[in-house]
């Protein structure tokens, strides 16, 4: 069960090997998290994260090999996780890919793959888990969106559009969960130094996975609906959103 300060005892992670997800889990294990189900594509990398969590105090970490784009398996993920954990306190959705913009904007199947991995797949998985949380009468979904989806840029519009779709879907799902005891929190990080962004030039207000994790856990403690990380991005994007297209287009980065 989530405690009075919003800290979970059990969690399911979709995209169980992401750097941000791993930082969040480490922070939560230091509080109350004990039992975890990690879902991801690479068994070996899942095992590394599982051993890491077991080493710092988790008591049981199950790994499930699966692909977030395989919507047909999502209902069984949710049911199996509920059976393994008893109660699902937290569903952490971190699956995602940056894609390769130059390829994605000319190759239809590549564009579809980014949209499936970042938007369609996570949205379908959230539907499956939201059904379990509604029946439980409690539990929280935390989904990693991105500021890239707040206003989509020419330079990475395939990734940005996928996150915009995910963010909009999550916003609607959060509304649908009101009055059910379950809830959903959207996380909008800025540019984060992770394996996914290795080799790229940092954007403005660049941050780290650990800093995002700290912001996420604070947001959970406050029952936030949306967490921006770092928090000043909220105000920056309030302005950027309103810029005329001609100005927006000329911004560097």
């Amino acid at each position: 069960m989530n405690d009075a300060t919003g800290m979970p005892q059990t969690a399911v992670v979709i995209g169980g090997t992401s750097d941000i997800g791993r930082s969040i889990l480490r922070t939560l294990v230091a509080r109350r998290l004990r039992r975890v189900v990690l879902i991801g594509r690479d068994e070996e990398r899942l095992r590394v994260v599982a051993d890491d969590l077991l080493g710092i105090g988790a008591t049981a970490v199950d790994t499930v090999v699966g692909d977030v784009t395989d919507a047909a398996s999502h209902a069984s993920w949710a049911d199996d996780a509920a059976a393994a954990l008893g109660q699902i306190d937290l569903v952490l959705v971190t699956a995602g890919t940056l894609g390769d913009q130059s390829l994605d904007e000319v190759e239809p199947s590549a564009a579809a793959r980014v949209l499936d991995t970042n938007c369609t797949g996570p949205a379908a998985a959230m539907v499956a888990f939201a059904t379990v949380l509604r029946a439980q009468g409690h539990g929280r979904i935390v989904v990693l969106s991105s500021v890239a989806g707040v206003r989509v840029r020419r330079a990475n519009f395939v990734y940005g559009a996928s996150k915009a779709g995910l963010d909009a879907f999550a916003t609607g799902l959060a509304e649908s969960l009101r009055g059910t005891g379950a809830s959903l929190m959207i996380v909008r990080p800025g540019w984060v130094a992770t394996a996914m962004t290795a080799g790229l030039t940092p954007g403005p207000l660049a941050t780290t996975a650990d800093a995002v994790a700290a912001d996420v856990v604070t947001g959970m403690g406050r029952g936030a609906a949306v967490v921006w990380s770092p928090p000043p991005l909220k105000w920056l994007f309030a302005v950027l959103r309103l810029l005329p297209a001609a100005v927006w287009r000329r911004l560097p980065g």
Partner: protein
Amino acid sequence: MSGGALPGQAPGAVPATRTVLSGWGGTAPSAAQVVRVTSAAEVDAVMAAAVASDRRILARGLGRSYGDAALCAGGVILDTTGLDTVLEADLRTGWVRAGSGVSLDTLMKTLLPRGWFVPVSPGTRFVTVGGAVAADVHGKNHHVDGSFCSHLDRLSLATPVGRRDVGPEKDPELFWATAGGMGLTGIIVDATVRLLSVETTQMVVDTERSDDLDDCMARMSARDDEYRYSVAWIDCLARGRHLGRAVITRGDHAGVDDLPVGRRARPLDFDTPRRPPVAVTPPSGLLNPLTVAAFNEAWFRKAPRRRRGHLESIASFFHPLDAVEGWNRLYGRRGFVQYQCVVPTHAGDAVRRIVEHVSDARAASFLAVLKRFGPGDPGPLSFPMAGWTLALDLPVGAARLGPLLDSLDDLVVGAGGRLYLAKDGRMRPETFEAMYPGLAQWRAVRQKVDPDAVIVSDLARRLGVIDAPGRRAPTTGSGGR
């Protein structure tokens, strides 16, 4: 799964709705199907339906437990407030048999004009008899009279294996497992309570201020036994040499002779103040270290340095916060936690260290309450033990709150003390296990009346009260998917 009657019952027999509930602290909400009952027969029917349909169930009264003790996510919440009838009473020897949904407010309004008072009164009148049993509540007279369940003759319990009538003589194991058992041994249907005879509805009160915590504890140790009721309010935001400055109030029921001549004709009139509600929920953060320190300062200055024999009404002496309806909402949407611990008498130094921790952390705590407990009763999950109990209210939201309270837990466990389940919403399962050495014995008794863990609460799931931690927690049942 929303709405409708429980499976196995005629539609509409007992209305049920799916509702999001939380405790008095407003934290960790969860949704359950709420079924309001108005008779013992309906309690049995709802229990039977829950068993038949493999649903989880829990009784809830006025929802004054602070954390998740009266929540049953995904299950059935049996609202007992319709069991609000005083079933039997003997006003010569002084006892009542009351439905579990009767509030102590109702009991006082009914009984005080006839010269009887409840044996134990917690800080609010707005708790039910069932809740008072389930939490084995204590009051300012614990050092003299013990807790609520020490004043019971009999309880009727609706368990998944049928009705059980228990008392200190009849099936004492199940009776004491129910005393402080947080409603997990069965649904309390009614309770027979022995009453306290009073001549008036006024209290004779002595008030004194102490300049620091050591002074306060010394004064309480020295002279508590001269009073039936005793409590101290501590300013946890005071620092340095004023750390733990306090106002001690002690008193007893006034006799007719203590009243001014003009009031002696009607000594048993019981007036409760009108209750202005908190009209809007202010933003979380209204109660911060600055505003709370200012309040605490004003409150401390207002108290007399020393005053003896002052007359005060029962309502103002026992239930000052009841004068503001919904005061809990002052903490805003995020809510608050109340941290209440007890440490054995010889470990009084732990109280000082806890107050120091809270003061150092500048956690905005309204006045904390300090009181001496007498010996506990035999209930394995009953909270009181001979020693010092300290209660603090703290707003939720600051990231450091969780780690701060965990460090207090370590102090309490180290001192051989424990936390009060009716207040808890955040301790760890292993902490709970360390604090309640009678837990294994309690589990064995509970197992006999609820082998399938039909009765469960969010608190029970969080702390592994029913199942040892590590074992699989009970699921929400098959009703929802």
